[in-house]
């Protein structure tokens, strides 16, 4: 079986649906060798490779499929996937990548036991990236860091998966944009939230509930998901903030909230943050 990507893959609803299409097509196969064709790709947001890697590793693990990629096609059409480490993840060779152009935040995976590594990544690879240099105050940096550490904590607590968290980013100097994506392949927002609040029965309602500062943390006190500070920052800076969980694609555009219901699901939760300045 061969699956062909075509056109552009951007950090938006259409881009996510393209990846979900791939996932649902390939998930029909078990114990098969599946070839991904990148020959017709002409644009690929590097941060979206966090979702792609999460999906492919899940398909390899759950369905015992073998994924084959023609890396020459990637080098020809979207070499950013070599520079950000996607290829070394797929080849499982542990090769350390060095993006000479310094336009990517490397694609990494973090298990709950790697809290210190995650902190280092957020501090050095993400928030110290040249794409954000001078654009964020110390206070904003602290708040954003704290938000991602809260997200990491929530994945440990709620995602009900031993699979890692996937992270990646890309900087577009000309467009003055910086995109950063975090993906977990756990149970998503609805499962735990609906247990706590019976009135919440849809992914859309669960995302709304979570982003308002609620949490299902164990114990007698409530906490927060870390999402609220990111939303506040985006509101102040006209940045974008996307949350995808279950069938809901929730997006803060910089000025308003849009929600789209999708026909197909992918497990877990994806969070995109798009800085603009």
């Amino acid at each position, binding site marked *: 079986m061969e699956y062909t990507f075509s056109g552009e893959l951007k950090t938006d609803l259409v881009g996510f649906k393209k990846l979900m299409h791939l996932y649902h097509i390939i998930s029909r196969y078990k114990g098969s060798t599946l070839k991904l064709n990148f020959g017709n790709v002409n644009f690929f947001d590097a941060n979206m490779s966090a979702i792609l890697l999460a999906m492919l590793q899940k398909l390899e693990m759950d369905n015992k499929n073998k994924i084959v990629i023609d890396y020459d096609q990637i080098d020809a059409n979207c070499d950013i996937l070599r520079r950000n480490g996607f290829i070394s993840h797929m080849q499982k060779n542990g090769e350390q990548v060095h993006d000479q152009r310094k336009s990517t935040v490397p694609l990494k995976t973090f298990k*709950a036991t790697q809290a210190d590594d995650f902190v280092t990544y957020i501090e050095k690879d993400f928030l110290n990236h040249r794409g954000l240099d001078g654009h964020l105050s110390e206070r904003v940096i602290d708040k954003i860091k704290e938000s991602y550490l809260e997200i990491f904590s929530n994945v*440990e607590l709620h995602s009900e998966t031993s699979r890692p968290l996937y992270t990646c980013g890309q900087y577009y100097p000309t467009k003055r944009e910086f995109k950063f994506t975090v993906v977990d392949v756990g149970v998503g927002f609805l499962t735990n939230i609906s247990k706590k609040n019976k009135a919440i029965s849809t992914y859309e309602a669960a995302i709304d509930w979570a982003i*308002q500062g609620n949490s299902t943390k164990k114990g007698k006190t*409530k906490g927060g998901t870390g999402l609220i500070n990111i939303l506040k920052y985006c509101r102040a800076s006209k940045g974008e903030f996307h949350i995808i969980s279950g069938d809901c694609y929730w997006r803060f555009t910089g000025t*308003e909230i849009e929600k789209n219901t999708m026909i197909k699901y992918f497990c877990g939760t994806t969070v995109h943050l798009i800085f603009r300045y």
Partner: protein
Amino acid sequence: MQQNKPSISVLEAIGTPNAILHSFGMTVYDSAKVVVQENKPIIIDFNGVRNLTSAFLHASVGNLVSLNPANSNLITITGLSNPQWEEKVKDAIALALDPKKRDAIEYEINKLFSE
């Protein structure tokens, strides 16, 4: 007198300066809960902690306060290196004492959803 209180070093309890996980907070909670249940004073010392999340605070300080709300003043927090963390500790304690409390940020975001 404070110097006579038993003290728990967060850094030593969790073995990292990154107090970010709920499970790390539960480690501190487990270390201190017997003292709190016995109505004895205790110091939770954050010296050396570089990163701190509300998840950690709710699991540790929040849950300890919930154990014995009437005597929450027996828990002393020291060594917070970031002034903003004091607010987070206060929030964790306030939420433990009053789970229905809603802060100004939540109100602001609620307004956004109703616009």
